[in-house]
């Protein structure tokens, strides 16, 4: 062996710090990872068999709907609101020739109106013309005595009439 070779004892190679300390863990974890076979995900049976047909059907359906775009929800809303407006207009103006007449009002409604509005007798008097007040209005009605008694007892403060 040459002299030159005799003197070279070490390789000159160096090792990173702590390399050998962590080697067991490194190798073990690599083994762990390599041992896992597959992802664990499964696919339903027969899934791939019908896929092409499913997709092609979807595509032709999409192409059909492109043609019938006229009947979109938005369009239908617009059209129906216009139609509704027109209908309303017709009903209110063209076909409604009648106006409300006084005779159509129910007596009960009129009565409750008078009572609720607190129309006092002066207001009423101003509404009545002299011709309206006819003597017969007062004479014709013959109240029964029973009714009269009931009324007086229920509506009139009798105390007022009894003097001490």
């Amino acid at each position, binding site marked *: 062996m040459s002299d030159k070779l005799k003197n070279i004892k070490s390789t000159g190679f160096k090792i990173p710090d702590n390399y050998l300390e962590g080697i067991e863990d490194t190798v073990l974890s690599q083994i762990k990872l390599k041992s*896992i076979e597959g992802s*664990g995900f499964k696919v339903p049976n027969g899934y791939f068999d019908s896929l*092409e047909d499913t*997709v092609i059907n979807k*595509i032709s359906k999409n192409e059909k709907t492109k043609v019938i775009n006229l009947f979109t929800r938005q369009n239908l809303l617009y059209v129906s609101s216009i139609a509704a407006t027109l209908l309303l207009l017709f009903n209110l103006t063209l076909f409604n020739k009648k106006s409300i007449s006084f005779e159509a009002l129910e007596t009960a409604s009129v009565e409750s109106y008078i009572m609720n509005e607190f129309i006092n007798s002066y207001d009423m008097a101003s509404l009545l013309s002299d011709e309206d007040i006819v003597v017969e209005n007062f004479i014709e009605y013959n109240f029964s005595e029973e009714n009269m008694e009931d009324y007086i007892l229920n509506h009139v403060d009798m105390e007022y009439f009894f003097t001490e």
Partner: protein
Amino acid sequence: MIDEAQLLEDLKSEKHKDKAFRTLMTLYKERLYWHIRNIVKSHDDTDDVLQNTFIKIYSNIHNFKGDSKLFSWIYRIATNESITLLNKNAKQLLISNEDLQDSTIGNLATDVYFDGNEMQLKLQEAISKLPQKQQLVFNMKYFQDLKYKDIADILETSEGALKASYHLAVKKIEAYLTKN
């Protein structure tokens, strides 16, 4: 062996498009399914994304210029559709993407279409802790065994960056598996 150039020509033609499209679907359906499934995790979501991907391919094939491989273009659409779905689901539930991931992984054990053992479940957990890009790279390399060159085309990232990303992902996952 399918001649990709011929397939592309047929896809762009009026006359042969539908037949060529069916061929394309048959060719790619399984690979794309698993690519998507690794991202969105549930079968139902995968089914939605896969169908949307094919429909998008059908609608846009006339725009495909051929400046990348057909394969990369298809995978890119599938990847984007998957991420769009995840974002949409998170938004609908008013939670962050990370929270949605945690919840999804939490449900895996009871998922009818997951029959993984404890290790496989732990692996899914570990993957979910990675940043999104690293997850994509890891899944494509580890589960799908795609070449770095192909992954680079799909994700439009350099091979070097991808290799670094993958090794980092592996380290993190291994550490997670050892710790848990």
